[in-house]
């Protein structure tokens, strides 16, 4: 083997290993990074959950009187109160891992935890 070939092989190896490491590191990141709130399919708010000492309450009041009160803390979120008839959203409680959602069907409010990268495309439930 020529000297150049050896250099080339080393370069290829380094490239492959670093590419592998980078994609792996990105994919393994499963911390809750953002919370996304949508109302009737439209983005209402997006917050960074990595902030220290995060404590925030968001009141979503829609024109027709529908109310959801959302509580957000570092790394987690929940619907604290709602005036929907079933209160499924309130009973769901805190969500804290990427992909988890709270859906308030009557009020069309969805909160979702988003991680760096999601490794699945959808969930059948």
């Amino acid at each position, binding site marked *: 083997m020529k000297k150049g070939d050896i250099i080339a092989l080393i370069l290829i190896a380094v490239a492959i290993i670093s590419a592998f490491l980078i994609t792996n590191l990105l994919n393994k990141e499963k911390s809750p990074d953002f919370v996304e709130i949508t109302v009737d399919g439209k983005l209402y708010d997006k917050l960074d959950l990595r902030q220290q000492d995060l404590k925030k309450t968001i009141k979503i009041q829609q024109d027709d009187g529908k109310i959801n009160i959302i509580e957000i803390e570092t790394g987690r979120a929940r619907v604290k109160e709602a005036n929907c008839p079933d209160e499924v959203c309130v009973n769901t409680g805190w969500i804290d891992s990427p992909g988890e959602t709270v859906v308030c069907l009557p009020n069309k409010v969805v909160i979702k935890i988003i991680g760096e990268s999601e490794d699945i495309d959808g*969930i059948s439930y």
Partner: protein
Amino acid sequence: MRSSRSSIMFILAAVMILIMITISACTNQKQIKRQDFAMGTAVDIEVYGVNAEKAVQKVFEKINEIDRLMGVNIQDSDVSKINKMSGISPVKVDRQTLYVMQKAVHYSQLSDGKFDVSIQPLVELWDIGHQKDNDIPDEQKVKEILGYIGYQDIEIDEDGCVIFLKKRDMGIDLGGIAKGYAADEAAKILKDQGIKSAFISLGGNIFVIGSKSDGSPWKIGIQHPRKPRGNVAAVVEVEDKSVVTSGDYERFFKSGGKRYHHILDPDTGYPAWTGCISATVVADRSIDADALSTSIFLLGPQKGLELIENMDNTEAIIINDNMEVLVSSGLKGKVKITSEDFKLK
């Protein structure tokens, strides 16, 4: 002669070409992602392609049309009319309603009457997921209502496009099949618009067209039946398939250590406690996957799996109450368990 310089140049060129291919693959495809609410659930659509915007618009129009025809809570839907006129007179319906009803009756026969769209009076009595006080209905009342349940008393006249429920207090609810039909129609519209890659979720009823825009199969997670929405028990990779799950965790209440869930058994009048806690069907059409996932849940793991094994291009993933995952023969080796709570059986 090969020098180190030409080797490096060659590698650089190869890397550049790879990068260019990746970039062009990402930018050529226009991606549209939309969420809306229809049929009493959240509808998510993700479409890649040139006509994506127009196609998605058409899909939502279609889903709303199907809801207007088949919604049990919509005043003048075909379903409401059929229920109002039960025992009185046949009702002229839309061709689509007729088709879904025929499919429903087909699955009633296939599941020995376990899947039954005439379950509506029982659904109304239990009202699981809507009532706040979580009452278990009176045993006598359940028995009485069982008397009006039976798909055999549904009369379908295909030529006249007419449906008649023979007994006065009968009622139908297409909740266990209409979403599947809507997902199929949505996929049809997208394909007609030339879309080659899309993801549709109608409240967890999933239909994927083609593969992902990068050519890899879609990874669909099966909801963890004992953790909040978004946690996954297993993952299955699919292309051009529908994936539908029925489980005892969607709408339920607990009383006396028992889980009273929304999948009711038309033979007992009570929630189906069959040893199944989640039943997923993977099929070419969502209407089949929808009806079959409910059917196998009601039949239980053993009989359910037998039913699936006798069908072509239809597979199942069942989770039993021992937290074991059972997989039909066509999916062996293709389902990845992603939660430590479960093991493959």
